[in-house]
């Protein structure tokens, strides 16, 4: 088998211009959209955790919370996959700078917040979720690989799964290495079977040896080129906003993932 199907039950989205999926849909239908406030609400976190949590966690929790709310599923029951191409780049910059100057002054809190699974940790703690949680990356293919991982989990285990893909803007010398210049996150609740809350059916097909087809085109100046996750997720999110369409995502360096969207009956 080289294809599998999942049903989308919830969609979360955050960028400096779009505060949720409704805003994207409005924009795609030609309506004016008010940008969200700069401060991420991340209301799924208790207030004290929200103060402590780093930016990468606030972003991931915000979009995760939106998707779960839309699905009307219980967050505590959902296995979750958190994907990020670069993790918390602000903390990476802080840690490397501190280690170069005064290593024994490294902040213990920032150290434990530096793990790639910090968003998964904060999320499962805030929602009381004891299910499997994962944190993954796949370079520029992190969104497609995350979608494949969450969909295969959902189908193999016959359980709904939360997928969260997010990257914050980079900072410092290491930030310049990956060109991530803006915050972007999106999240999907994916179910193995059609249900009352199904918004769309996604048929995922692996198309190997697709190297050249996956090379990005020349930069067009579009905003989503300033974030690895935004650039790769954007075609699918637009299809979701329009309710139809096909797109091809990178799932690995030469592995394409064709995503065909079908309306649900």
């Amino acid at each position, binding site marked *: 088998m080289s294809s599998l199907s999942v049903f989308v039950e919830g969609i979360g989205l955050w960028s400096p211009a779009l505060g949720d999926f409704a805003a994207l849909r409005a924009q795609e239908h030609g309506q004016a959209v008010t940008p969200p406030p700069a401060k991420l609400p991340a209301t799924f976190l208790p207030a004290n955790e929200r103060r402590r949590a780093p930016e990468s966690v606030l972003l991931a929790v915000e979009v995760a919370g939106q998707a779960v709310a839309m699905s009307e599923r219980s967050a505590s029951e959902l296995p979750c996959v958190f994907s990020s191409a670069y*993790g918390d780049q602000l903390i990476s910059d802080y840690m490397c700078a501190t*280690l170069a100057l005064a290593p024994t002054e490294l902040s213990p809190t920032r150290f434990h917040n530096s793990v790639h699974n910090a968003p998964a940790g904060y999320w499962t703690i805030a929602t009381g979720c004891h299910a499997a949680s994962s944190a993954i990356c796949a370079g520029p293919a992190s969104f497609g690989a995350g979608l494949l991982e969450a969909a295969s989990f959902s189908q193999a285990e016959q359980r709904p799964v939360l997928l969260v893909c997010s990257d914050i803007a980079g900072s410092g010398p*290491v930030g310049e290495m990956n060109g991530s210049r803006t915050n972007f996150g999106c999240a999907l609740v994916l179910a193995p079977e059609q249900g009352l809350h199904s918004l769309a059916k996604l048929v995922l097909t692996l198309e190997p040896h697709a190297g050249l087809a996956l090379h990005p085109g020349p930069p067009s100046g579009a905003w989503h080129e300033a974030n690895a996750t935004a650039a790769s997720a954007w075609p699918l999110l637009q299809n979701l906003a329009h309710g139809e369409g096909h797109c091809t995502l990178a799932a690995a360096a030469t592995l394409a993932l064709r995503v065909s969207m079908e309306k649900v009956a």
Partner: protein
Amino acid sequence: MSVPIQPLAVSAYTATSALGHGLESHVAALAASRGALRPNDFSSAPLACWIGRVDGVEEASLPAAHAVWECRNNRLAWLGLHQDHFLERALDARQRYGAARVALVLATSTASMGATEEAYRRLDEQGQIPPDLRRPLIHSPHSLAGFVAEALGLEGPCLTVSTACSSSAKVFANAERLIRLGLVDAAVVGGVDTLCDSVLFGFNALELVSPEPCRPFDQARRGISVGEAAGFALLERIEAAPRALRLLGYGESSDAHHMSTPHPDGLGAELALRDALARAGLRADQVDYINLHGTASHKNDEVEAALIARTFPASTRASSTKGYTGHTLGAAGILEAAFSLLAIQYGLVPGSLGCTTPDAACGPQLALENEQRQINVALSNSFGFGGNNACLAFGRAPA
């Protein structure tokens, strides 16, 4: 409750740690109860602690074709791939199934962070990363899997799992799902983590680093010793290797408790354990050996000891091997999977090196000295920051 899975063949595996390069050196060290921790000679500034450092990493330069991936973590990966004929076995699987039908799922907690740290120690006059390290691929958490995918020429699903110290146990679960769904026919799984300032000074800041060689489960334990390791395994359907040792099951769970301390009752650890037994179709009393997470941190060992004491009969033997290798973080899952497989293969329960007076929470299962006995089923526990837990179950092919 999870349902039993079809076991998978572990048709090849290998490990490289402070104990040596490849499995033979590990068996020899365990049999002789010879640990490999040394006073810290690694960090860029002095830090009084003990580490599990792999010899020869600095010399294991990458072939020119892969020079863009050069960094110490990928050197350890390259060194590890060459032990126990693993590279040949992986290439053979690629040949048999096709490059797109073999998944690559690798774990790391810090990937090539050591190279980024080095770049910050010698920024150029403009405050930028110096030219020789201005290679974006190595300043990404996907550096390890990206390099190994290229080195093995694999073109199937390729994923980095980074859930701190449970990472390289979880890769077995990712691979099993992909094989079960028929998306691939085989998977190379594993993990590589190298020593770097981030983890040495990070765990030091959390006051979790022991000033002496770590002593898992001992009453007088004073914290962890950080180590490094590389390990890999090749997973296939059992028809492809009917006599090979097997992955029988796995469990995954979340504590939902705290970012850096375990649930006080071991709730998540127990859920992962029960999940693994359910998938393997096993009762607790069928488990012969458990390679414990046993980091020698005060909390982990207390919670894990109580879980083992209340769940298993005394005939189940349990030990931590971190006294031999140190805590190899994102590589601990695969290294200790290898110890569990070796335990079955050689009938060897390794003693808990460093433990002389067990914590009061320990039950009669804890093996202090080496024991020789038939081992048919072995478990391996791996727990990480963020309350991320995994448990693996391995066994032998039926006689």
